[in-house]
């Protein structure tokens, strides 16, 4: 378990972290999600000991690690650009941490073989990093980090430098790996889909603070504020209200609370249909409907329709507030 309390960090004039507190439960896979500059990587590097906080404490498994160098924190860290030891073979890379710990040779060899099997790199022992693809290098880096049986595994945008299709594969693979090797894991990402797909808990970061923490579905359905809502999925603005495009409903006739709008475009995306509208005041918004609904309404661009939210205004926010979450200490 990792617990961070009151951590602040400033780089020159830039406040990277502002009094951040967070708890990561034992065995969980947690995402730090946010746009670039939100402080997520800085927080991860402070947990790792690669960066020192200006204030606050980092406790891992009940031991205060603030001020302890990275070398003695017993963590595994995976970098966006792999940080492979280029002059070492795959075997030597994975064995590095064990060699430093002066484990017997036979034990190291067995452990390296086991790990290369887990990450699917058996048979690549004698290759050099330059002879591996990006995805393979990152799997090697994961094996290297896991070799020393770290108390926590920290991943800094691990798939950020990879192609989209490799990234999707590795994401699923990481989730399976976590089920096999359930070490407490924190992954930094700016990709909400990645966070939603593989993690148990998401901490959304914004301007050096944690905006909200919770399971992916709770964040999606009950976002604490407009930032979390718009960061976790597509949104449309209807008057003062921010809503998900699939929570909007279109009708041919006027009804209470509905606004008049003109269809500007109908985009068929397989089962879903995205209807683009322009309101009377000139604002545009998108609505997501099923193919059946679109056909029943016989939508064509130029049609005049009525649009309203299925959910009462502010429902999402009030639901969360009644739970008291934003005022209570943030915990995952």
């Amino acid at each position: 378990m990792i617990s961070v309390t009151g951590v602040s960090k400033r780089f020159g004039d830039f406040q990277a972290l502002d009094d951040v507190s967070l708890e990561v439960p034992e065995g969980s896979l947690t995402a730090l999600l946010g746009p670039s500059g939100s402080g997520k990587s800085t927080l991860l590097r402070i947990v790792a000991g690669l960066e020192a906080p200006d204030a606050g404490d980092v406790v891992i498994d009940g031991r205060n690690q603030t001020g302890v160098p990275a070398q003695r924190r017993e963590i595994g860290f995976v970098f966006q650009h792999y940080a492979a030891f280029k002059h070492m073979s795959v075997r030597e890379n994975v064995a590095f941490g064990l060699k430093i710990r002066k484990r017997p040779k036979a034990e190291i060899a067995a452990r390296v073989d086991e790990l290369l099997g887990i990450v699917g790199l058996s048979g690549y022992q004698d290759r050099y990093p330059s002879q591996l693809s990006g995805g393979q290098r990152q799997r090697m880096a994961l094996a290297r980090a896991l070799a020393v049986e770290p108390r926590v595994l920290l991943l800094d945008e691990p798939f950020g430098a990879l192609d989209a299709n490799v990234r999707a594969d590795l994401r699923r693979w990481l989730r399976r790996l976590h089920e096999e090797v359930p070490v407490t894991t924190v992954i930094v990402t700016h990709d909400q889909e990645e966070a939603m797909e593989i993690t148990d808990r998401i901490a959304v970061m914004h301007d050096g603070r944690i905006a909200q923490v919770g399971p992916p579905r709770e964040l999606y359905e009950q976002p604490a504020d407009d930032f979390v809502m718009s960061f976790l999925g597509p949104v449309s603005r209807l008057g003062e209200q921010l809503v998900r495009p699939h929570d909007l409903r279109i009708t041919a006739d006027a009804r209470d609370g509905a606004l008049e709008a003109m269809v500007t475009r109908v985009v068929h995306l397989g089962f879903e249909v995205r209807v683009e509208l322009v309101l009377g005041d000139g604002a545009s918004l998108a609505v997501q409907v099923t193919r059946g609904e679109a056909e029943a309404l016989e939508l064509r661009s130029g049609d005049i329709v009525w649009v309203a939210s299925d959910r009462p205004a502010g429902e999402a926010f009030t639901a969360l507030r009644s739970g008291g979450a934003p005022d209570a200490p943030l915990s995952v």
Partner: protein
Amino acid sequence: MSAERTTRYGLRTLALAYLGALLFVPVGLVLYRTFQPGIVEVWASITTPAAVHAFQLTMMVTLIAVPLNTVLGILAALVIVRGRFRGKAFLDMLIDLPFAISPIVVGLSLIFVYGRTGWFGSALANAGIQIIFSWPGIVLATIFVTLPFVVREVAPVLREVGTEQEQAAATLGASSWQTFRRVTLPAIRWGVAYGVVLSTARAIGEFGAVSVVSGHIAGQTETLTLLVEQRFQNFNIAGAYAASALLAVIALGTLLAMTLIKPRKEHA
């Protein structure tokens, strides 16, 4: 033949002609002239007591100056690339000073500091230590003129390698020394090797600064380059050529050693 090809071959010819006129012809001529009197004479000329001593002195000076500058050069490169402190740009500039200053000025400044009338001169003389007109002075002069090579070869490689591999090593439990020995040093090894080769070549070939501080005492403070000059001045042209050829062979050997140790297959 297209105009582009004409230009390409033209440029190649020009480059080769330039190298030929300035490099191959003079060096080739030295070797040719050396062996003109015959191999026996050449051997005799480079095995006189003065020549053997000059060779030994040059080797000793090189073996002291180069390792020192290698260790300190790597440290200085680490400080310049990784350090965060005020005056870093100034230090960076200072490293290039030996390149900018004429070797003769280096020699003179050493005399000002360590000579008999210099700052530390009388104190050193009282302690029975002689630096100027003795081998320690030659070593100091050589260290000074070869100082920038390792730093200048290693610093850009360090910058290029970055700090991520070192951070990875730290998270895996490596101490600073283990990280340096197992990760940083292997990553910069070709930069270090190149710096060592250049330092060695310069240490063996240095004339100006050494000439000022040595005092030219045959059999005592005469290095190989000084021997060449002394023989040339005494109209012993054949002897001068023989000693020059020896210098050239050592230099070529150094370059060859580097080519041989360089990796066949570059790891990207």
